[in-house]
Every structure is written in structure tokens, then in C-alpha cells.
């Protein structure tokens, strides 16, 4: 198989580490922008994408209703007012609120048999971000941290894990967290606007002073570091070495850098803009971006809520998949829709649907997942899973497999091996074959 190379030598097949390491060794900190520009050069970004999988997680905070999205039950007493429509995948029907995705289900796998057994926002969000419950004394890394760790090179010039969650509802219940992987893989959280905190230089210092001050810091450390040995110390220097690169990635968060035409395609909403930024980020090599969209928790007025929110999701997700496809990124970028749980088939007195974790749905598009597929079946009213049940563990094993990771790969906490998924948990073979 021919390999893309950076410097023209076949013996020197490029990976991101080599590319960025080379850039670092070359002109040191001053070349940050150059390195980033190199990432957007066509042949380099091609080399990058064959090596590195990335994930955009559309997090439907509060719990979107499966009945108004991926698993409609028109005509059933639990079905609600919306119809279902035929998709481009024979036999697969989804809610009429999603006409755009209905024409694009060939990119996507719908998992309809989620039974995750937890209907509490906070603890369910933790489980659905990690694929398992924390042990009393062990904090697991979430999906973003694992993907950051697996696909983010140590000398990364861009953030590894970015999470947008602008609405306040439920935000504190679903924080990104790197667990035992430590601060190196902790998310960059964007909660107030679309720019990361502290990414911009203050006005009080010139760019040259900012740069040289950093170099002075390194020089001063040399004497102290001689004869001393500590991973924490190394991580501190690594963190400071990444500062200028991350600052240079500021433009990735600047949506005005996109052509107006592209912005118009995604649309003017905050969710649309953040999803477009997510596309910019993964294109530049950021391994994991979560775009949180709240608040789907429709205990009352479920149908109005979904009538308003589902078409936005439909449009943004369809645009994202088209955009990634046009850029040739869909084989390497996975797009997921997931939440802490779904919603009850039964409709309550306020015309709402409540928390429901026994038979709900999520989607996985792109990367190594079997596209145009449906896995799992709920009963005619949507109360239980009748075939191909999936729990949080096997969902995560499947996601890892579809990203080319061995779900049984171990991390070590001290000497204790901790596999990516709990022992005995297996991916869904039919979806990652």
C-alpha cells in the first residue's frame, strides 16, 4: 500500500508525531503558525487523516426522545403526534422531524436497543460518557479523554479534547473528565463563549515578549532540572511547551474564518456554529470534540420541545456529515449522537415524557462503524428491548473497535491493569465486522 510521506522519503512515512516533532525541533516556538499551516496543506492533512481517528460527539443533554428521533412508534398509544418517514436505507424509518437525516442514513448506524439502567441525569451522564460506572476509588477517563490519549500526540499543537456546553441546564452534571489519565487529557471546556479561556494573549505584553519570556522560563529551569527526575516536572514543561501552539490554534475557534457560504449551510444557531467549529477542529487534528446541546429534558410539552429541537439537530447533523464527506474525512471522523438516556414511551399528564433508560437509541456515523445499519429492536410500544440489547459497556467497546482500538487494551494505574472496557465486555460484532 502506498504511504503518504512528508519529506519525500519512503523510509520516512509521516505520522503526526514526526511532523510536529520535526516542526518543534526546527524553529522551536516561533514556528507554531507554520506547523499549523502545514496541517492544512492538502498532502499533509491527507497523511494525518489516514493515521488518526477523531470523534465529534453531539451530546443531547437532558435526554432526547428516541420516539421523536431514531425509533418512532407512529400509531402506538405511546407514539405521539409525529409520523415516521422512509429513509435511504431500505426498511429503516425515522421520525418525520428528521427529513434530512432520512436521506443520509447510509452514513449512519442506529442503535435502538440501549438498556443502560440509570435514569438519573448526573450519574447516567457519567456512565454514558465513560461506558461504565466509576468504582468507589477509581475514576475512569471518559470517551473524550481516552480518544485524546489514543490519538493526540504528546507534542500536540492543538488541544486534544474540546467540549462545548453553553447552556447552563445540566452542565454541571456532565463535565468532561480525564479520570485516572490525569490533567494531560483533561478537556478544554468552553462554557461561556466559543473561545477557550486564556487562549488569547493579554494586551499588556507584546507577542515577542510573550514568546521570549517563555524561553527565559526554559533557560532558568535548566540548572534546577539537572540531576532531577520527575514525570510531574516533565509534564509541567510539556504543558508550557504546548501554550504557544494552543494559542496559535485560536483561529480554529474563530468561525469568521469560514466562508460565509459554509456558515450559511450550517445555519445561524449556536449549536450549528459550535458544530462547524468542531469540524474545523477535527480537520486540524483535534482528536475529540463534544458539542453539548441542552436541554432535552421534556417532562412537559415533549412534542413542542422536540418539534423545535429535532429539526435543528437534523439539519446540523446532516450538514456535518455532508461536509465531512466532501472533505474525505468521514472514514476517519466518527460522529455520534448520545445522551444520558432517552425518554419514556408513556406520555405524562403534562404531555411530557420522563427519564427512560430501558429502550432508547443513539447513532454512530463514519469511521469504522457499519453504515446504513440498525441494531436492536424495541417492542411495538417502545417499552422494552426485544432483540439485540446493548448496554453502555458494549456500546463503548463498539465505538473503540470502530475507531480501530482494541477495547481490551490496558492502561495501568500503578501496577493494576485497567482495560478500556470492563473485563468480559465485547463489541457488537455485526457493527464493526
Amino acid at each position, binding site marked *: 500500500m502506498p504511504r503518504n510521506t512528508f519529506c519525500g522519503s519512503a523510509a520516512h512515512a509521516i505520522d503526526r508525531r514526526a511532523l510536529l516533532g520535526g516542526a518543534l525541533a526546527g524553529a522551536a516556538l516561533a514556528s507554531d503558525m507554520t506547523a499549523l499551516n502545514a496541517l492544512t496543506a492538502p498532502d499533509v492533512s491527507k497523511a494525518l487523516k489516514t493515521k488518526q481517528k477523531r470523534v465529534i460527539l453531539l451530546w443531547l443533554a437532558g435526554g432526547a426522545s428516541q420516539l421523536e428521533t431514531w425509533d418512532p412508534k407512529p400509531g402506538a398509544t405511546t407514539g405521539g403526534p409525529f409520523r415516521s418517514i422512509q429513509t435511504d436505507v431500505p426498511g429503516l424509518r425515522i421520525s418525520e422531524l428528521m427529513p434530512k437525516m432520512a436521506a443520509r442514513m447510509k452514513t449512519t448506524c442506529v442503535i435502538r436497543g440501549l438498556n443502560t439502567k440509570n435514569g438519573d441525569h448526573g450519574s447516567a451522564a457519567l456512565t454514558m460518557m465513560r461506558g461504565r460506572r466509576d468504582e468507589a476509588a477509581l475514576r475512569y477517563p471518559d470517551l473524550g479523554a481516552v480518544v485524546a490519549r489514543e490519538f493526540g500526540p504528546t507534542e500536540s499543537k492543538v488541544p486534544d479534547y474540546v467540549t462545548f456546553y453553553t447552556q447552563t441546564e445540566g452542565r454541571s452534571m456532565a463535565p468532561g473528565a480525564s479520570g485516572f489519565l490525569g490533567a494531560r487529557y483533561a478537556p478544554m471546556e468552553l462554557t461561556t463563549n466559543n473561545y477557550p479561556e486564556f487562549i488569547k494573549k493579554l494586551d499588556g505584553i507584546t507577542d515577542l*515578549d510573550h514568546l521570549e519570556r*517563555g524561553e527565559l522560563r526554559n*533557560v*532558568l*529551569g535548566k540548572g534546577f532540572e539537572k540531576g532531577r*527526575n520527575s514525570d510531574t516536572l516533565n509534564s509541567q514543561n510539556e504543558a508550557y511547551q504546548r501554550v504557544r501552539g*494552543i494559542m496559535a490554534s485560536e483561529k480554529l475557534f474563530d468561525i469568521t474564518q469560514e466562508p460565509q457560504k459554509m456558515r450559511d449551510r450550517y445555519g445561524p444557531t449556536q449549536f450549528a456554529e459550535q458544530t462547524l467549529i468542531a469540524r474545523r477542529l477535527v480537520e486540524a487534528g483535534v482528536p475529540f470534540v463534544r458539542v453539548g446541546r441542552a436541554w432535552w429534558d421534556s417532562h412537559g410539552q415533549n412534542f413542542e420541545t422536540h418539534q423545535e429541537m429535532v429539526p435543528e439537530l437534523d439539519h446540523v447533523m446532516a450538514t456535518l456529515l455532508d461536509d465531512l464527506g466532501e472533505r474525505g474525512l468521514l472514514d476517519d471522523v466518527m460522529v455520534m449522537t448520545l445522551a444520558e438516556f432517552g425518554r419514556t414511551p408513556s406520555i405524562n399528564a403534562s404531555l411530557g415524557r420522563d427519564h427512560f433508560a430501558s429502550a432508547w437509541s443513539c447513532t454512530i456515523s463514519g469511521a469504522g462503524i457499519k453504515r446504513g445499519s440498525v441494531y436492536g429492536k424495541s417492542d411495538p410500544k417502545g417499552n422494552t428491548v426485544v432483540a439485540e440489547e446493548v448496554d453502555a459497556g458494549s456500546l463503548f467497546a463498539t465505538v473503540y473497535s470502530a475507531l480501530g482500538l482494541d477495547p481490551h487494551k490496558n492502561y495501568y494505574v500503578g501496577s493494576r491493569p485497567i482495560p478500556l472496557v470492563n473485563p468480559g465486555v465485547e463489541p457488537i460484532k455485526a457493527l464493526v465486522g
Partner: protein
Amino acid sequence: MRLRLLLTVVLVACAGSSARAADLPPATKTVEAVIDQLVDAAIADANVIPAAQADDATVIRRLTLDLVGRIPTSGEVDAYVKSGDSDKRAKLVDRLIASPGFVRHQAALFEIMLNPEGDRRGSGALRTYLTDALKDGKPWDVMFREMLLPNEADAKLKGAADFLRGRVSDADKLTSDVSVAFFGVNVSCAQCHNHPHVKDWTQDHFYGMKAFLARTFDNGGFLGERGYGVIKYKPTKGLERVAKMMFLTGATVEDANAKEPTAAEQKAEKEALDKAKAAKTPPPAPKFSGRAELVKIALQGQNADFFARSISNRMWHRFFGGGLVSPLDQMHAENEPTHPDLLTWLARDTAAHKYDLKRLIRGIVMSKAYSRSSQYDSENRPSNKFFAVARLKPMTPQQLSTSLKIAATDPASFDNLTPDDFEKRMEQIESSARGFASLIAQPTDNFQIGVGEALLFSNGDRVLKEMLTDGTGTVLGRLKGMKEKDAVEFLVKVAYGRPATADESKALVVYVEKRKGREADAYKQVLWALVTGTEFRFSY
């Protein structure tokens, strides 16, 4: 069957350790002498060359950071370095341990130890309790008892209840956290299956511990405890079992009330609880309290080994940056201490001296093992397990933030203060540093500093406004009128507590001279480079 087997194992192990007791250094020796005897013996046995003793400036920096949670002022450093008193280290240690800063800093560390996840930490009632307890010199076993059997009617002790209160809704977590915090044992692996690698820990242990604790509940904001109840669990193999109250050693407590209550009993109980709730008083204590039984059995005879060894190991870890047993929650037969006799001796000494934390801490920091250099120039760097070279300990957020403020302050402003005023000044600085501290991550074992911290220091305006200003009373303000060389050497001295090297001085002067006409900016940048440097970030 397994239980009997385990009991045998424990008995044999205990017999082994008491047989060895005769070989331990005598109980009459000082803590520091025994530490040095046994650490040096292991170093000699392994033919390892230890690092030299750290110099005076390093020793006072380490002691001040570790004991009272801040860097020393340059005045403190100078006085210590210049002093020819052969007893100056002991005097410094005693002064620091007697200071209010010691109580505040150690209380903060105990709070981190008890609430490692960080929720509810900081200004809550538990911190107040810990601060008062340490101030009164309460022994560790008394603190353990007060936290597990809190007397909520006593306003002064109320905060002790917070340890249980934060966990009362999750008996599994409570079981695990009590075992980790007080006994150095993490039984949570045994919740779902017998531990795959550690034969000491079976499901019986997890549920045995849970049986002591699971009767605790919340009653209108007060802790209640039922006098009955059954913990059942389904082992990985075999039929469902009822868990007996069983301590980690396998010692059990007979409990006649391990049953479900009758309807009449339930009704009577509910009435009593509602009455307490309405009166806003703690609910009545049960006649037979599982928690009281746990406290009793855990401190009884050889069962107390877990408790004594765990606190000894934790204090060792606090001051050496690594445990004699590591990780701290894995104290079991298959995870031998690096220095088994030393841990046994320290635990015995600590128990014999009524769990006096100050005695243990003082002994540790007076040892030569504690005051070795963290620098090792030759290639054959000894493994951490010998404690032959000091480890770097990343500062806690509060240590770092307080130290930054001190480094940004004109050192002359600390001169001529009475000891009382000096302490008050330090307390003010510490509390003014709290806000910035909340932006920094709490270190754990194998801590990684994230890019968030580097971005905060690089571009955060609080750093600029709170630390890099040159108003009156600041270190930058003092530089006005100084020559470049004097100014940069002054900054190094204040931040690092040592004179600048010739190379540093040269590099910094070049940096400042390149910014002719805007020296004030240059000095801010020099101070920034110093305090973001690796030399500042650690207790070394």
C-alpha cells in the same frame, strides 16, 4: 471455609510480626534515629549511594513548605542559613509545628486525604473541625472516633459529621472510603468479585465492612443509625449470603439484631425519627451501633495494626512524596512495604504514643533521610524505593498560590514584625491566595500538570493583576532605581530563596537590557519566568 482459611492466614501473619518485634529497634529510640537506621541499612544492603544532605536554604524551603504550606521569606532563609546554632533545625521545626500555619496547612491536607475527590472541600464544617482538632493536638484515634461517631449535639464537634454526611446516600462508597481513609485498604474491588490478585480481600471483606456502616442514614440533616438491618450479597459463586459484621482482619462482631424489623418496630422508629426531625435534633442513637462496633474493633489489639500502619504510611507519604507502601490504599500482604520493619516500628511507636501526629511528623522531618538533596548528578540514580534521593513534591494549589503571593511581596515588609504579627500577615496572605488557588488542580500520585495551568499563568489576567504589579509593598516596586544586575539577583533571591548563579544573572541582565527603556515590563517578565519555572512549582 474461606473465612477460616483467611483467619489462619491473618493469625500466622500477626504471629510472624510479633515474633519479629524482638528484632525491631528498641521502642526507646527516637523516631528520627530509627528512620535513619533502617533507611540507611537498606541503602547499604543494596550498595546504593544516597544523595548528599540538602543545603540549608533547601532544607528551610522544604520544611516551611511541607509543615506550614508556603515558601519561607528571604528573611527567614537568611536567618537560618547564617545561624551557627548546631540545634537550629530542631528549633525551626519546633517553631513551625507550633505555629498556626502548621494547623491550617495540615488541616487542609487531612481534608484532601479524607475528601480526595474535591467536592465539599475548602471552607466547610469538616475543615473547621480538622483545624480545631489539630490545634488542640487531638490524637488520630480520637479524630477517627469523632468522625465515625459524631456528636452532632456538640457545636464544636459538629463538623466531624461531615465525613459521613457526604457519603450517607451511598453505603458502598461509604464502606470503600472509610476503608481507604483510615485503614489504607481499598476493598472496592471486592464488591463484585474476590480480588483477582489479593487473597486477603474477598467479597466477605467488602460486605463485612459494609455491615458496620450501612445502617447510617440521613434524618432531616442529622445523621441517624438503625439498630438493625441485614446486608445480603450474591457471591460470584454460590447462594446469596448474609454479611456478618467483619473487620478487615477477619475478626467478627456478633449482632443479634441482624434481622429485618417488625411492622410495629418500624412504626415506633418512624415516629421517633419524625419527632427528632421536627425538633431539629439528632435522632436517638441505637442501643447497638454498628459504627461504634467498628471503631471499637478497629482499635482493638492487633486489629489496630491497620489503623496505625495506615496513618504512619500516610504521614510518611506526605513528607517524602511517596509511601512506604504505595499506593496508599493498597496495604495488603501482596504489596510489601519498601521497609517492612520501619513501617512496623513506626506503627508500633505511633500507637504506643497515643497516635500523637505531631510526634510522628516531627520524627519524620528531623530524620536525615528527609533532608537529603533531590539532586543526583551521577547516572546510577537509585530507585525511589530506597528514599536515597529526595523526591519532588508538586505544591498543592494553596501552597502554590500562597507562595506566589510571598514571592511577589517586598521582603522588607516582613522585617521587624513581631512573631504574632508575622503569623497574622501570613494568614492574610494565605486567605487572599485562596481565589487563585481554586483555579489550580490538586496533585495526586503520578500527577500531571495540564496545559490549562500553563495557559492560566501565560494569559490569565489574575496573574498579571495579583502578582505582576509594581505598586508599593511589592517585590517589583522595590526594584525602582536598582541596577539591572542587582534587580534580577534580588528577584531570584526572593523567588528561589538562594543567590542567583553567575549564568542566571547574566542571562537575566541580557534579557532586561534588550528591553531598554521598558525595564518595568522586563522585570515583570523575569518574575513571571521565575515563578512559572520548575524550581518554583515543587517542594524539592
